[in-house]
């Protein structure tokens, strides 16, 4: 690894002061499971690495009935995967957290790091998009909230400024009779990157679908919502025929490329299959 200096802030203010001084030549380190390989490969060569281990604010994992779920950006995937509040109330998030890397990686890899790395295939993105999460971002002028749907700016790009830090991800409570699911396709079951990942989140009311949210990974430069498919579901009973129709509409939202993981055609096929499966699973979890 190229040599660098390390900063060890003990709170958020200290971290923000360092970012204000040296932000453009610095990298923030949470779990390190993306950053360290990138630094070892020479893809990233920061002069300074700011270790978030001592910043308590980014390690909180809290769930409140009204405010919803707050996941500190540095909370490891493994902690999210095992948290009963996440599993019960926000199951799609737990589904995704359980799929990242191996257990040795999940104990390090952070939710915020997965989002800030901004890979099109990021597993944490689809369930958080489907749950309409917001990114709480701290900077020199205070904190701002950005809907996660506006957080990704391109392949490996986010809207974070060089003097800013993702503090936490806030997910509103989905409400009663809601269910969600995230499924991805990988050639291997573990330690692989999604060829396609799909999250679905539905809320039922009086026998019909009151709200539907569908998000796709690895079929566009950023994780995206499949809004046409969502609109087709809302206000209607979720019959198998309607789910098939939504799966077709989700395929139309996808703009996949062909690469070593799969062809564009195969990815479109996967969007169809996984949208159907996640909607069916979400419906079952909503208690239909």
């Amino acid at each position, binding site marked *: *690894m190229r040599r660098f200096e390390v900063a*060890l802030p003990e709170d958020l203010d200290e971290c923000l002061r360092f970012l204000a001084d040296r932000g453009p030549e610095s990298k923030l380190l949470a779990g390190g499971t993306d950053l*360290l390989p990138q630094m*070892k490969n020479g893809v990233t060569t920061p002069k300074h690495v700011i270790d978030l281990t001592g910043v308590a604010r980014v390690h909180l994992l809290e769930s409140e009935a009204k405010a919803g779920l707050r996941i500190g950006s540095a909370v490891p995937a493994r902690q999210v995967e095992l948290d009963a509040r996440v599993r019960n109330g926000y199951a799609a998030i737990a589904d995704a957290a359980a799929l990242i890397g*191996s257990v*040795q990686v999940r*104990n390090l890899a952070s939710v915020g790091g997965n989002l800030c790395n901004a890979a099109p295939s990021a597993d944490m993105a689809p369930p958080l998009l489907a749950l309409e999460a917001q990114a709480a971002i701290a900077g020199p002028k205070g904190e701002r909230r950005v809907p996660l749907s506006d957080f990704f700016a391109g392949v490996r790009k986010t809207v974070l400024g060089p003097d800013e830090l993702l503090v936490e991800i806030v997910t509103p409570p989905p409400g009663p009779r809601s269910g969600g699911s995230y499924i991805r396709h990988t050639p291997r079951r573990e330690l692989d990157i999604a060829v396609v990942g799909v999250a679905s989140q539905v809320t039922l009311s009086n026998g019909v679908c009151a709200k539907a949210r569908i998000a796709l990974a690895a079929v566009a430069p950023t994780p995206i919502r499949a809004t046409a498919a969502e609109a087709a579901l809302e206000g209607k009973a979720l019959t198998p025929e309607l789910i098939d129709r939504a799966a077709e509409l989700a395929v139309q939202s996808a703009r996949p490329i062909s690469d070593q993981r799969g062809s564009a055609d195969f990815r479109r096929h996967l969007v169809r299959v996984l949208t159907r499966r996640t909607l069916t699973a979400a419906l079952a979890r909503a208690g239909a």
Partner: protein
Amino acid sequence: MAKQILSSTINGEAVEVLVQPYETLLDALRENLGLTGPKEGCGTGDCGACTVHLDGKPVASCLMLAVQARRRSVTTIEGLSDNGVLHPLQDAFVRHGVPQCGFCIPGVLMAAAALLAEHPKPSEEEIRYGIAGNLCRCTGYTKMITAITEAAQAAAAPRSA
């Protein structure tokens, strides 16, 4: 580049050691502390040969900076036995002749020890998932699974005097 003082608990002992800011935990353990049980296979978190416990949880020590272990407790394979008495997993691995080349074994044992701490009676599938982050290029997985299953049963059985 100013060296940093790293204060941690390593294998149950309070340790203070000077580390470079860019040094990984794995390098600090091996080069500065002489704990050569954890191995560097890939250096990118794919192979699991560097697995150690951080506050009781298995992590890839090649993906951590040494300074990130400050004020925390690290256990390596050297700390798995208890005053010279082998951990039941180590004992089962020896009796079943699990190691072939042996390079992956310290990592596999640390992953398996963490698994048994969480699931004292794991199913075969749980065992396979528990060591999914550990690659064995000799492909000796069958004996590993047998030995881990046996160690779990031995730990669950009432001990005779």
